[in-house]
């Protein structure tokens, strides 16, 4: 499942490889890719807008620890955002 979306996300991250840090300029193209990936996956537009905005805020200026490359950091931010969008936790049944 989600093969297309996965492939798109991967492309988005590629651009950040080899960069020293995440800056406003280099993150922009990655974000554009993410936005396209989500839209092509038929995600609802308000969700896409919010998603991209949140990723931008979290990614730009994020401290990249030594040993972690910017693309890895970016993946982490996107991962966190995906979890948030999908509900951030599992919802158990309430048994009576």
């Amino acid at each position, binding site marked *: *499942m*989600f*093969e*297309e*979306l*996965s*492939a798109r*996300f*991967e492309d988005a991250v590629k651009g950040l490889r080899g960069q020293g840090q995440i800056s406003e300029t280099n993150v922009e193209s990655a974000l554009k890719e993410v936005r396209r990936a*989500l839209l*092509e*996956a*038929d*995600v*609802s537009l*308000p*969700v896409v807008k*919010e998603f991209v905005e949140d990723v931008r805020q979290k990614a730009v200026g994020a401290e990249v620890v030594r040993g972690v490359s910017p693309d890895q950091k970016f*993946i982490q931010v*996107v*991962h966190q955002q*995906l*979890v*948030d*969008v*999908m*509900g*951030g*936790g*599992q*919802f*158990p*049944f*309430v*048994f*009576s």
Partner: protein
Amino acid sequence: MLWGGDNSPLFSAEIPPTVVLMAGLQGAGKTTATAKLGLHLKDQGRKTLMVAADVYRPAAIDQLKTLGDQIDIEVFSLESGAKPEEIAAAGLEKARNENFDTLIVDTAGRLQIDLEMMEEMVRIKSVVEPDEILLVVDSMIGQEAAELTRSFHEKVGITGAVLTKLDGDSRGGAALSIRKISGKPIKFIGTGEKVEALQPFHPERMAGRILGMGDVLTLVEKAQKEVEIADAEEMQKKLQEATFDFSDFVKQMRLIKRMGSLGGLMKMIPGMNKIDDGMLKSGEEQLKRIEAMISSMTPDERNNPELLAAQPSRRRRLAFGSGHTPSDVDKVLADFQKMRGFMKQMSSGGGMPGMPGMPGLGGGSSGINGNAGPARISRGGGASNAPKRQRPLKKKKGFGDL
């Protein structure tokens, strides 16, 4: 920790049963989801009753009954002519009287703009007073799923969604939109046609999958459900001593089959998400061929692969019995011997020297180089004696169930 382990714990109120009401559009998979959920709850040790309250679609009640028979869960319904709310009420009555602790009510498919049908839903709801109302949504409809969830919630008031047919959805628009737009969580996902193919929805795991990080947790849970620890220990011993034989091989294959498709499993392993579908297919085909050959073996041969290596006539019989050529059989046997050696090497700490000779994967090109597999050494006159007439490949024959 299938559900609730990482979140608020379950509580048990004074009066069972817990009532689950299923709702959704036509063809979303409500009846199937009902049975899947029933099995899921049964696996957790809950005594479940399923109520067939879809009186509109022909054979909907029969479908649920058939599914119920398969998974050994009782299905309740009334004679034709009864209204859905009457069936639901009678089902609830039965559940109370007979100490069922969970009741799942399957309803007819309805459009959210069909006022009459939505009112019926509200009536059913007020009769059974459900603890959970699950909206079953087909993930193929993409972001529309989110709007649908919202409008069902506004009209009936749901507690969560079950996202079906997710195995065929390569995009994920529904999974990503529902929560934000409707405010309602996805509680379960349907990932296949089999009754076992229902999983609780874990956003972290799903996010991991989307980003190609695999889903080891789900893989482990699946394996734990199927693998007996004693069996696993015995198997490990056999691998280490290189006494792994064909009957063990069949056992392993069956285990994998119970866990789902080979492709589905491989994709949960990190880094394997991009594995080529064609490769998987040829792998699965190869496995089928091997299974056919093993079906043609006598019990002695299964337990003692050396017999086959020593006697060409046995290999010939195998080839005809399974509808393959003698050289196909030789190849599989050589691969098997190689695999044994390789596993021994791995378990004795020899590291991982690539993955040579794994039968089943690699499309059958391995082992063709004719190196010193015992099957090759003793081939000798056997092959030249082989009758010239060749059977078509993969001729089906009625073997007993393996």
